């Protein structure tokens, strides 16, 4: 099949498949919203989990659905919450009264910069998107420079300069001392303009110890967070496995495991033959 013919066939296929998908989903949502949801959710959840066994078609399918659906989801949300209300609402207030704004002609500027941004899709004029990017970079720089200076540097320095001797409390004195030593030594460790030797080397090594404790804590928190998310998914699967949900997750799991097992045996068979 020539490339042009294939292109037409592919576009036709996309149109038909999209129409069928929408019809199928709309039928399911319209007639059995909750039960249908558990079935779809179970297929997708277990599809992703099947990756633990190995990369396989269930996982690939779920992953690709995710990419497509999330891109469209973000576009829809971003458009209706911002462009519809705050851009059209200001440029064409009569046609878009939901924004509740008055006409403001200056808003042609972000519209133009937005269109420039889209020009990135066309390589020959893609450079014009630099103008829009420049606006974004400039605003970020202006916001962050002050924000980080105040909250991450000044405020942190202020709270670190604690009294090392707290009358009446040995524990507080030790803790404050450790905090001051820890912050200063770890900061010195980040100072690479001077070789870490002699007294400087000793201090920066103390700094490493504090940093390691901090990384250890981050690691502990990372484990904690991931396990929590796993608990959430398992809780969902348990819910989807109840009789009221049609035991969707159980049925889907059994089918997936069977298919993967059959596939594994087939692969093994063909490997032995070869």
């Amino acid at each position: 099949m020539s490339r042009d013919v294939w292109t037409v066939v592919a576009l036709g296929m996309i149109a038909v498949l999209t129409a069928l998908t929408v019809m199928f989903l709309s039928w399911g949502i319209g007639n059995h919203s909750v039960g249908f949801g558990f079935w779809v959710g179970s297929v997708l959840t277990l599809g992703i989990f099947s990756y633990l066994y190995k990369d396989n078609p269930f996982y690939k399918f779920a992953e690709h659905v995710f990419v497509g659906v999330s891109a469209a989801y973000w576009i829809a949300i971003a458009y209706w919450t911002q462009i519809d209300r705050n851009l059209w609402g200001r440029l064409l207030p009569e046609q878009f009264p939901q924004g509740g704004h008055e006409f403001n002609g200056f808003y042609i500027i972000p519209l133009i910069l937005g269109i420039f941004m889209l020009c990135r899709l066309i390589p020959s004029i893609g450079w014009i998107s630099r103008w829009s990017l420049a606006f974004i970079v400039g605003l970020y720089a202006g916001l962050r420079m002050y924000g980080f200076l105040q909250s991450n540097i000044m405020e942190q320095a202020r709270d670190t300069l604690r009294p090392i001797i707290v009358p009446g409390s040995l524990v507080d004195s030790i803790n404050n001392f450790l905090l001051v030593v820890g912050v200063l030594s770890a900061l010195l460790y980040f100072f690479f303009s001077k070789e870490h030797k002699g007294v400087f080397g000793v201090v920066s090594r103390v700094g490493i110890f504090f940093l390691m404790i901090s990384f250890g804590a981050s690691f502990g928190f990372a484990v904690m967070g991931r396990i929590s998310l796993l608990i959430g998914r398992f809780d969902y699967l348990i819910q989807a496995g109840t009789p009221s949900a049609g035991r969707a997750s159980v049925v889907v799991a059994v089918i997936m495991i069977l298919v993967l097992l059959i596939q594994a045996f087939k692969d093994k068979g063909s490997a032995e033959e070869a």
Partner: protein
Amino acid sequence: MAGNNSFLVKMGQLDRRLVFVVIGIAVFLPLKFPIGLAVVTTPTTQDVFNAVDSIPEGSTVLVSFEYGPSTRPEIEPMAITLLRQLFNEKQKVVAMALWPDGQFMSTRVLERIADKEYGLKWGVDYVNLGYRPGQEAVIKGIAKDLRANYNSDVRNNPVEDLPIMDGIYTVKDFDFIFSLSAGYPGTVEWVLYAADPYGIPMSTGVTAIQVNEVIPYVKGGQIKGILAGMSGAAEYENLVKAGDATRFMDAQSVAHFLIVLFIILGNISYLVQRRKQTA
């Protein structure tokens, strides 16, 4: 002895799929058959409770939803408990979101708590302004003029018609900010562009992964307390009303215990192997 040693070395080289299965079972069983371990509240969680508790009755609190489905198990229990504490103390709640998903999360939680559990009135006791794209620029924008960006709520009611928004023109008019955050933009941005520059009291509930990024602000007094991950949520529930996070703590405990066990086994195997090599 040699046999023992090779067993110990093998303990450090189990197939990773076996590890997966063990972790899966460790999470599944306690969910299905709860043990009911008692939750102990840590000081930073107590600080959050106290900070929210000390807001004068009838204040208007801004609750920002910066999380999505992927982090819902950690943050949603915090959101539910926070709303309960706020509504118990007759505070008014204005919800917004810096994450697109946050709007769905807030809608879900408000429907359940404000509407069904407390029977409160939209626009009077609470309102949901929804999501606006723009990350920290949204915060900076509403610091000057909230209505330029949020002219209507998610139900399309003009903000000027909502009694709860009387007298609220900028972020500075809120009595308290609470950020329910799972990353960027979230707690850090609220500190940088609202709490610190304008001196608005704020508190936060974050995912476990974010804790270390935020903890210096908490200890520096820029944020009042912190709910750290799902265990933080369970501790908070312990102070207000038990919910999902408390129910999930058994599974969390067992999974942590097993992972620690795995690390120890892996290291015993490593040390035995190292001794063999040096011998």
